[in-house]
């Protein structure tokens, strides 16, 4: 029964992922009816972007493969659970950068860490750094160049600490005013 429910949920999630693509295909089909002269330029642009992306996916595959092979999420959980000053910041930043998978999968763990006394600032920093994905770095470099890409990632990692401090301060102030 439980196994069946799991299968139903999985197939529902698989379908959901295709909804957006199907919607865009419908838009594309309606353009072919109302404005057929636009169809070939659109297809041409699509194929051009696709050709640029395919080799990048191969690089991304190898990075994902190595990350999955050598990084264990349980280790991250262990070190994220500490309020250790600079060490805590560094661990939150690194954990955010190397964390894998959907954010929805991380919420239960973050909730658990929060209930165990982990500071909100570290959780915020972790979430901010999830925006820095090393496996997608080749794509960023491909489009924007390495100087821009490296600068952006460093700026984001530094600002994540301020984001953590400010958000925690705002939550504390809000809690104090409502007490």
């Amino acid at each position, binding site marked *: 029964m439980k196994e069946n429910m799991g299968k139903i949920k999985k197939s529902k999630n698989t379908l959901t*992922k*295709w909804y*957006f*693509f199907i919607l*865009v*295909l419908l*838009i*594309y089909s309606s*353009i072919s009816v109302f*404005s057929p002269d*636009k169809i070939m*330029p*659109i*297809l041409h*642009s*699509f194929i051009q*972007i*696709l050709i640029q*992306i395919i080799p990048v996916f191969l690089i*991304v*595959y190898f990075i*994902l*493969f*190595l990350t*999955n*092979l050598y990084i264990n999420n349980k280790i991250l959980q262990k070190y994220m659970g500490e309020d250790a000053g600079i060490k805590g910041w560094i661990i939150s930043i690194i954990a955010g950068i190397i964390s*894998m998978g959907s*954010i929805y999968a991380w*919420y*239960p763990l*973050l*909730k658990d860490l*929060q209930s165990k006394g982990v500071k*909100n600032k570290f*959780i*915020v920093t972790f*979430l*901010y750094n*999830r*925006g*820095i*994905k090393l496996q*997608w770095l080749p*794509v960023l470099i491909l*489009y*924007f160049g390495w*100087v*821009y890409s490296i*600068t*952006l990632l460093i*700026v*984001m990692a530094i*600002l994540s600490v*301020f*984001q953590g401090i*400010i*958000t925690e301060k*705002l*939550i504390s102030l809000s*809690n104090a005013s409502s007490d």
Partner: protein
Amino acid sequence: MNLEKIKNSNKRAISAIVNILPITFGILLLISIITNITPGSFYKNLFTGNLLSDSLIGDILGSVFIGNPITGYIAGNELLKSGVSLVAVTAFLVAWVTVGVIQSPAEAKALGNKFAIFRNICAFFMAIIAALITVFIVEIY
């Protein structure tokens, strides 16, 4: 090295890529549609060249859209090619990956309403700051 672990890592890497393909293909096709049917003047009207208002618009667009970083990079590159400033594109890219309007209900449920609201508001403004600092540094180089 454990063979089972290698197999699992391979399976997870392939699955991670396969999982994003539908949305990535959708975004690529949508970008192709938008770039071909939108007149160049649309972006010029939306992004006026004013540093702050352009970054704010980029920030708002990045906040409401959701997707994998790769799709954000592709969309950002197309905006850049349309003549949108690098500051606005950077605000768009940063907001895309750090502000989560769509997932905020799930975030609020897990970590609290105040956490989700303040984190997202702060990330929204931080995207503009990150954009200004990044472009300032890049221009020095």
